[in-house]
């Protein structure tokens, strides 16, 4: 379970993160609203957000709205010193999923996070977007501008591996091991055929999408 912890008090944030990590959670910290928004935009994998309502740069309730517009299905728990009934009601009305007042018990925080985790909708499978390609590992399908491109399983695996590792060169050997689980000359020939078919299906006639360089491949979109 991965958590985005938004808290401007650095000491408290570190302490909370440390305790959550001890419980097995993965935690990313943001000390301002801006940082929280950046992390959420970069990283779709959060299972819950812990939100301090009194951040230096953005009003907590305004930030809540921004967070929800980026990730509507990620539950948000406010962890705040604002302890009036009015604050709680207002926050919950504006879309908070739970509300815990500081000082808080770590065990109650964990119990409440776990409730949010077990009862929230499981997000959609991660679809990798590279350029105008949408690669869905769940259905093992690739879309371009809403149109499906039919690939064989091996073609899909090669494309998927390159997409997952976009931004770096992948060696022939690495591709063979990851896609066929072995590195042999016979398989090497098969890999070359697979890549050439893949390029054809993607309309990649000038090797612009899948780039070759010294026996390495990279996706280039």
């Amino acid at each position, binding site marked *: 379970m*991965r958590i985005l912890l938004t808290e401007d008090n650095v000491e408290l944030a570190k302490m909370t993160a440390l305790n959550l990590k001890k419980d097995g959670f993965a935690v990313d910290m943001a000390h301002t609203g801006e940082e929280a928004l950046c992390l959420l935009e970069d990283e779709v994998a959060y299972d819950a957000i812990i939100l301090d309502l009194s951040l230096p740069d953005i009003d907590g309730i305004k930030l809540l709205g921004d967070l929800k517009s980026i990730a509507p*299905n990620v539950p948000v728990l406010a962890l705040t010193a604002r302890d009036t*009934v009015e604050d709680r009601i207002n926050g919950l009305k504006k879309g908070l999923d739970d509300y815990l007042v500081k000082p808080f018990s770590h065990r109650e925080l964990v119990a409440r996070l*776990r409730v949010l985790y077990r*009862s929230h909708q*499981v997000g959609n499978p991660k679809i990798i977007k590279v350029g105008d390609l949408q690669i869905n590992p769940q259905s093992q399908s690739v879309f371009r501008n809403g149109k499906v491109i039919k690939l064989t399983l091996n073609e899909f695996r090669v494309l998927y591996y390159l997409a997952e590792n976009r931004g770096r060169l992948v060696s022939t050997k690495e591709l063979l091991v990851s896609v066929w689980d072995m590195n042999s000359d016979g398989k090497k020939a098969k890999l070359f055929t697979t890549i050439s078919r893949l390029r054809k299906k993607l309309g990649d006639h000038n090797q612009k999408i899948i780039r070759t360089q010294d026996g390495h491949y990279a996706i280039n979109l």
Partner: protein
Amino acid sequence: MTKKILFIEDEREFAEVVISYLEKNNFVVTGVSLGQSGLQKLEENSYDLVILDLGLPDMDGLKLCQKIREKKKIPILILTARDKIEDKVIGLNAGADDYLVKPVALRELVIRTKRLMKRDLKGTFRSSMFEFEGISFNTVTGKLTSERKSIQLTKKERLVLEYLLLRKGRVLTRLEIMDHGWGQEIDPFSNTVNMMISSLRKKLRQLTSHQFIHSVHGLGYKLEVNDE
């Protein structure tokens, strides 16, 4: 559509105040003062939410909470005078979806009730226990139990297995599992996920001969279980 609430509470005067307030907010409320009658009502009618007092005369409120959770996938809100952290943690782990301490601001009760009902549209209310393939898995303690024996998972193993179970039948890539389980803590090219899966498999193998964390070659893993 009007939402129906079952309110299990034995203090009559308090119950009357709460019921009339909820009714003013357009909920239809059935009030009962005994745990047994609460269970019976749940059998006979369908409700959108249960509000539960823990100090009932005829049965332990936490046991009742577990019983309701086993039977129904509806939100449970505990409303009680028991204000110790320990009680809250136990209540939430027993399957309650929220825990409010008396005295309660009725407006907060209403808004929390509404939040829970809204969540119902998007998710399912479930307990912290999983039952599959003759194994019971307590996600709070990390204990796996079958007829053969009982095994303790580490905290990380516990969360990863829960992650897989919540997404059963779906291919999960190494990257997805890594993102949710470790985030930025580990090098994306490390083999932490593979190690984790193999250690989970090893532990599960001690409980059952059935293998259900499948490798989907070149893509990731998929958990398939017979349950419920």
